[in-house]
């Protein structure tokens, strides 16, 4: 067997041994990316609620707060 063929076989054998670990690592990374991406909507929801409802609540105008809560739900 030529030296180049032996090197190619050894490289392939190394890859074959590493592949399951690499696949597992890729799956883990995909889950981590998915989890991070999902935070975008949660952050946006909290930012929206704070901005639209909680800051006016600091004015302690209960009537206005009740009206805002009712109005907020119409826009969901």
């Amino acid at each position, binding site marked *: 067997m030529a030296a180049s063929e032996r090197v190619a076989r050894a490289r392939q054998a190394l890859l074959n041994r590493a592949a399951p670990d690499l696949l597992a690592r890729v799956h883990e990374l995909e889950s981590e990316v998915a989890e991070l991406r999902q935070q975008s909507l949660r952050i946006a*929801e909290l930012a929206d*609620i704070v901005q639209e409802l909680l800051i006016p609540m600091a004015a302690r105008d209960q009537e206005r707060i009740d009206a805002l809560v009712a109005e907020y739900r119409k826009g969901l």
Partner: protein
Amino acid sequence: MRVGPGPDTVLDVCFDGRRVWSFWSRRDVVEAGSGRYLAAWPKALASRLKGATAVTVLPHGASGPQFAAEIAFDDSGERLAIVNASGQPLGLDKSGKLVPTFDTRTPEQSRALLDSLVVVLDELHAAGIDAFPAYGTLLGAVREQKLIGHDSDADIGYVSRHEHPADVIVESFALQRRLVGLGYATARYSGASFQVKVVEPDGFVRGLDVFGGFLAGGVLHLMGEVRVRFEREWILPLGRCTLEGRELSAPARPEKLLEAMYGPGWKVPDPAYRFETPESTVRAFNNYFRVTRARRAAWAEDHRTNRIRVRSASPSPLAEYVVAREGVPQQLIDLGAGQAVDSLWFARQGSAVVAYDYLTAPAGRARRIAEREGLSLDSRVLNFQEWRSVLSEGARIARVAGPRTLLARHLFDATPRFGTDSIARFASMATRAGGTLYADFWCAGVPEEDQPWRPVDLADVTGILERRGAHILETDEFTDPVHQDRRTGRVVALWRPASA
């Protein structure tokens, strides 16, 4: 329908001269052996094949049919008419639903949609958004300067100046509120897209979809199908296009966006076009924008196929347990009410009932019955996967005086993990004046394919409730009396009145 040999071609199927369906002669058929192919009638159409009609099949855009014959699907002697209850002609749209496609509408009927397209675009521009017609609407404007006949809704797109998905979503929330302020009814599809509902003169409600997008790192993300390398100058500055005689804004290079949406063949009309969105794009959009809508389609389908005779249905064992344990509650909150059988029963016992669910349509019959019988039954939307829904409704109901009883029958096992925590959060908000939660859920024995249910652990549920301030009064686990291969978990949890 048997289809002969030949290249893959779009075929239009017409009943009495009107197109109702289109399909590709190779992509959409199954091989039946000996060089023959079969095209199955689409589900929505198959159930309507009653009576007789002149069936013609021809390549889209051709003048002469490949097939023409009078076909009687039964011996009723009636004429087959693919129309809705109001007599409006229908055709299959790209999602396989029978709707009044644009080629069945008169100019008068389409005017409301076109007017709304102009109003919504103007309002988005006034809000600083560079919006333009998108998808089928842009395609029709660029290719033919009119609405595409086989299309059934209108679409608007925009590329936000923001680059982070969270900012794009907050912006989309504000835009929806702005259009609600103009008097439009809307419905949200995802964090970055929503639908404006346009009522046409004959009462049909047409969708005008608003799809948000952003450019980051040279990649355009445009809901719901586009995620490609793109140049900002292909969108801005906006140009113009003409649609049905109206001048509208357009991307600077509309052909670039149309190619991103439909591929290089966008110039050729295809009434059977099917998006083949890359898996990586679907994953990205689902995770960025669609986490508040899990299992929605499964639930809508479940209610459609498992209709209950609400008027005469018996209450659930859980509802009966509530009354046996504490009497008829003054205020009853039915969480995940579904078709609202228990809600109606409690209302008939004298409770003031609020029925909450992800979807409002399934409780429609119960609502109408309660109204006729003069009962106190309020039906409201509550999405446990959406914090905005849970927190705003929790804030509202916390202000309604009096202790209340909450019913959560097969709710913990019907929502993803985020939702189960939200149920407990909402319950803690709704019981600020005190209250008790009764919950039944599958904890074992549910087949994996039996969507949309998933079993949950009894200890997990009690843990979630305790972390939200509940005192667990009772737990139980028993063989379900109806599905005897399944185990039901039951929890009764108390929230004491919060101190002032």
